[in-house]
């Protein structure tokens, strides 16, 4: 070893000795480990839920005859929402910090759900709940684009406390579907459900607007033309004439359901009919497909 190498050995050791160095504490390291582990588990739960919920919903629908998915997506079909009664229990499994789930809350109707992005804190002017009808552009007195607080307050007047209120990030479209261009990684989705009615609110900056609904007969709602969920297909044709199309969708050999589309000047509603009765309707535009 030459002189330079000896000098390096001595001086590096001296420099390290002379430095006033703090070593990390084991407690700090373990805190970071546990925090990372929590995040890892949450990411796993979210990923599992994203895969499992639609699968469970489809499976349940096939068992009990409740429709959950659009079998024939078209270019202008940007929402396919699930029956809220088939998914509410599954969606409460995640506790992702970006996903907030409350059950039986939002009593004030202000649109607040946990710590997630919500509407303004001021008391909304609540439209009348008596004018609620199933419509292509909303639910009668509440229309798509209305602030979440107003819509939730109105619906709570009619249906009482929501049975589920969940905020979750947009997780991307399926490879085989068309997605609206406004759906991106900044999109946050809120789903509020009552018995027989699911509603979706969306936005990127916390100003959520009403964007979609899905209803079953349990909601007791009817269309503006007087059609009720649970009515027969003949009744659907009687009310809407040539504005309704019915296509048979066979999801398993010998098992299937009718896919119903009602086209109105304001837009369209789509739904399913099992056993010759209209069992669900949905309308609106949502980034998420039912999870």
């Amino acid at each position, binding site marked *: 070893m030459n002189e*330079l*190498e000896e*000098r*390096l*050995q*001595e*001086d*590096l*050791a*001296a*420099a*390290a000795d*002379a*430095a*006033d*160095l*703090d*070593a*990390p504490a*084991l407690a*700090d*390291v*373990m805190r*970071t*480990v546990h925090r*990372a*582990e929590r995040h890892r588990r949450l990411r796993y739960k979210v990923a599992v839920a994203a895969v499992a919920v639609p699968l469970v919903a489809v499976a349940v629908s096939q068992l009990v005859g409740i429709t959950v998915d659009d079998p024939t997506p078209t270019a202008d079909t940007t929402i396919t929402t699930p029956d809220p009664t088939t998914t509410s229990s599954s969606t409460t499994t995640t506790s992702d910090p970006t996903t907030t789930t409350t059950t039986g809350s939002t009593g004030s109707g202000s649109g607040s759900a946990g710590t997630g992005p919500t509407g303004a804190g001021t008391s909304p002017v609540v439209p009348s709940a008596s004018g609620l009808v199933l419509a292509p552009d909303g639910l009668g007195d509440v229309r798509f684009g209305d602030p979440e607080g107003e819509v939730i307050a109105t619906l709570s007047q009619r249906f009482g406390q929501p049975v589920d209120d969940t905020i979750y990030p947009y997780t991307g479209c399926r490879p085989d579907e068309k997605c609206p261009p406004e759906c991106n990684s900044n999109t946050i989705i809120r789903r509020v459900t009552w018995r027989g009615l699911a509603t979706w609110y969306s936005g990127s900056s916390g100003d959520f607007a009403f964007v979609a609904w899905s209803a079953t007969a349990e909601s007791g709602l009817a269309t503006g033309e007087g059609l009720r969920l649970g009515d027969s297909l003949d009744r659907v044709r009687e009310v809407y004439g040539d504005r309704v199309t019915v296509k048979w969708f066979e999801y398993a050999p010998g098992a299937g359901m009718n896919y119903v589309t009602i086209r109105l000047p304001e837009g369209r509603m789509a739904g399913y009919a099992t056993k010759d009765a209209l069992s669900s309707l949905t309308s609106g535009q949502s980034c998420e497909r039912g999870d």
Partner: protein
Amino acid sequence: MTTMAEDDVQGGHPATFEELFEHERQPMVRLAYLITSSGEAAEELVHDAFVEVYQRWDRLERPGAYLRTCVVNRAVRQKRRDRGRVVDLRAADSSVEHGYDHTFAALAGLAPRARAMVVLRYYAAMSQAEIAQTLRVPIGTVKSGLHNALVELKKVLS
């Protein structure tokens, strides 16, 4: 300096993470400091390295060696991020108070990976093969890197 990380290279294995932590936390901070010149950065990156080792503990055959690799590579990356700052080696003379200050200042003029090689060779007393393993580079790269670094340091320190 004998650390558990070196024992690892020779086939040793600490019984628990806590044991590794207790033996290695000071030596690893010193090692990181000599590469980064920053005590704060050294503490932070050693903290992160221990987190990584903990998360992989069950899969590591030689956790001490893995820890050292994590620390050195994180320190090299840290140093590369700081490379915008130009160090005038000869200007360091003005603030010299101790003999090692001059050497430490000269070290700061080396490229991050070359600096790590010098620190591992002359502070951690590692062989060229061990340095190559730690930095995940061919041994020839270590030989040439050390040679060039010594030439550079000799010019500055003479």
